[in-house]
């Protein structure tokens, strides 16, 4: 199980090779291990994540996929007693080196959480918050333009344009999650991390999120954790399979779902466990 896997795996097909050649890696992880106290949650993970593509992380609960996602914007830093080994390079710079600015990192690497977490403020203020704290706008009209653009990018503008100053908590679950995406897009990240963004939503709201992911991948590098195999198959270009804290297989999504090279992957994607 201790196979070192980087993108892509062995020469599987022409498509795989073309795929690598045509997409430079945005994120390069090398030998990453992660510890909660003395418990090792991630073991020696190496992976190259291509720019402007959707990469899905799948695997059974507790396999470490969410933990790994949160190492990519150092969200785990706020948990006490954690330790990280190895390196995570984004655009060639190690985000864990001492000189790395975690606040700036998190602006560039946006995150959408499993449970939508709008701030208890108005719709407008939710989106404006990131712009304000990062000092990204000078005038009120500029702020309004950026908020509108972000809401449009998250395919939410039509539904909320006449209720911008109502509470964000009065929106439906799916709208709240798209608001959280709009909020993340407002600060102009390059990368968007999504931790099971649709797991609490109904099928229609889920579909809207998936359509949105399709639209966004032209501009953003998207990494999505999902429990839903069909979702991974629908939205992602490549898929990484995690099992017991290790990355056991990483390949183009169609290969993972049609001709997986690992037995565990095959069992998992066909629903034999997990």
């Amino acid at each position: 199980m201790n196979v070192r896997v980087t993108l892509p795996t062995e020469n599987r097909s022409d498509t795989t090779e073309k795929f690598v050649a045509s997409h430079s890696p945005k994120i390069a992880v090398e030998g990453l291990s992660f510890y909660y106290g003395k418990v090792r949650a991630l073991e020696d993970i190496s992976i190259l994540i291509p720019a402007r593509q959707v990469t899905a992380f799948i695997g059974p609960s507790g396999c470490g996929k969410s933990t790994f996602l949160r190492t990519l914007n150092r969200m785990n830093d706020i948990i006490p007693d954690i330790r990280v080994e190895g390196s995570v390079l984004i655009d060639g710079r190690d985000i864990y080196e001492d000189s790395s600015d975690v606040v700036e990192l998190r602006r560039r690497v946006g995150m959408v959480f499993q449970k939508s977490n709008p701030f208890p403020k108005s719709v407008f203020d939710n989106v404006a918050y990131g712009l304000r704290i990062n000092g990204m706008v000078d005038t009120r009209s500029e702020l309004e333009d950026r908020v509108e653009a972000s809401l449009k990018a998250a395919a939410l503008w039509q539904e909320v344009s006449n209720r911008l100053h109502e509470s964000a908590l009065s929106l439906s679950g799916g709208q709240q999650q798209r608001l959280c995406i709009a909020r993340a897009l407002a600060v102009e990240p390059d990368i968007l991390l999504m931790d099971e963004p649709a797991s609490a939503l109904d099928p229609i709201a889920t579909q809207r999120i998936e359509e949105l992911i399709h639209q966004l991948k032209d501009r953003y590098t998207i990494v999505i954790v999902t429990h839903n195999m069909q979702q991974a198959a629908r939205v992602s270009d490549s898929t990484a399979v995690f099992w017991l804290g290790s990355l056991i297989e990483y390949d183009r999504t169609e290969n993972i779902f049609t001709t997986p090279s690992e037995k565990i992957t095959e069992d998992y994607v066909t629903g034999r466990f997990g």
Partner: protein
Amino acid sequence: MNRFLSVRTIIDWLVAVSGVLVTVASLGVLAVLLVDVAQDGLGRLSWQFLSSFPSRRAESAGIFAALIGSLYVIVLTALIAIPLGVGTAIYLQEYGRRSRWSRLIEINIANLAGVPSIIYGLLGLALFVRAMGFGRSVLAGAATLSLLVLPVVILSTREALRAVPSSLREGSYALGATKWQTIWNQVLPVALPGMLTGIILALSRAVGETAPLIMIGALTYVPFAPDGVLSPFTVLPIQIFNWVSRPQAEFVRNSAAGIIVLMTVLLAMNGIAVWIRDRAQARSRM
């Protein structure tokens, strides 16, 4: 219906009934107290009573000096205790690392909340009145009461901060907010109602305190209102205690009227707190 179901239904009913009984009992005691005080004191309440200084003759004595003294002391206490307590709580809860050292501090703060108030009076006498040379002043009294209420302010503020869901903090951090931006913009507005509740309870306790102020030498006969933070002073509970210990029935009526004034002050403070809290809550529900 089976027997089990009927037994648990009866238990349910019993709990509800006993709940009503204990509520009535405690409210009843309070009602008796209020009625008794009102009977004795209401007749004595008048503008003359509120605006006069203490006197040897009960009918011309008033509560003015003590009322102003109490207001002075409580405002000053709030100004000292709230920044110190809230700042400490924010540091301990948001910045302090979990360590044996921080647990030790926590336990000590909790213990301080249980220290008898007269001990704080002794500390205030030695520290503020003597060592720091405040004298028997409003400032020394307020500083002493601040020490007394600080643990409660710290503990309740921490509790309110802890109740803020971590998803809110994560959402803010994920947008590139610094720790302080997150605390100031997201955590404090949500925690504010809970913080205010604790702070007001603490200040209400301070308004009613007598022992530590007697200890630091608040006077029982003050024929003037304090004119600055270094002025001598008295407060409502001390004035009430002074009157109630006199043998003449007229002075006892004065003390009942004084109690009504004190309770009105407390009620007003709580009312203002509830009002501020509701406004803050309405805004944080936005």
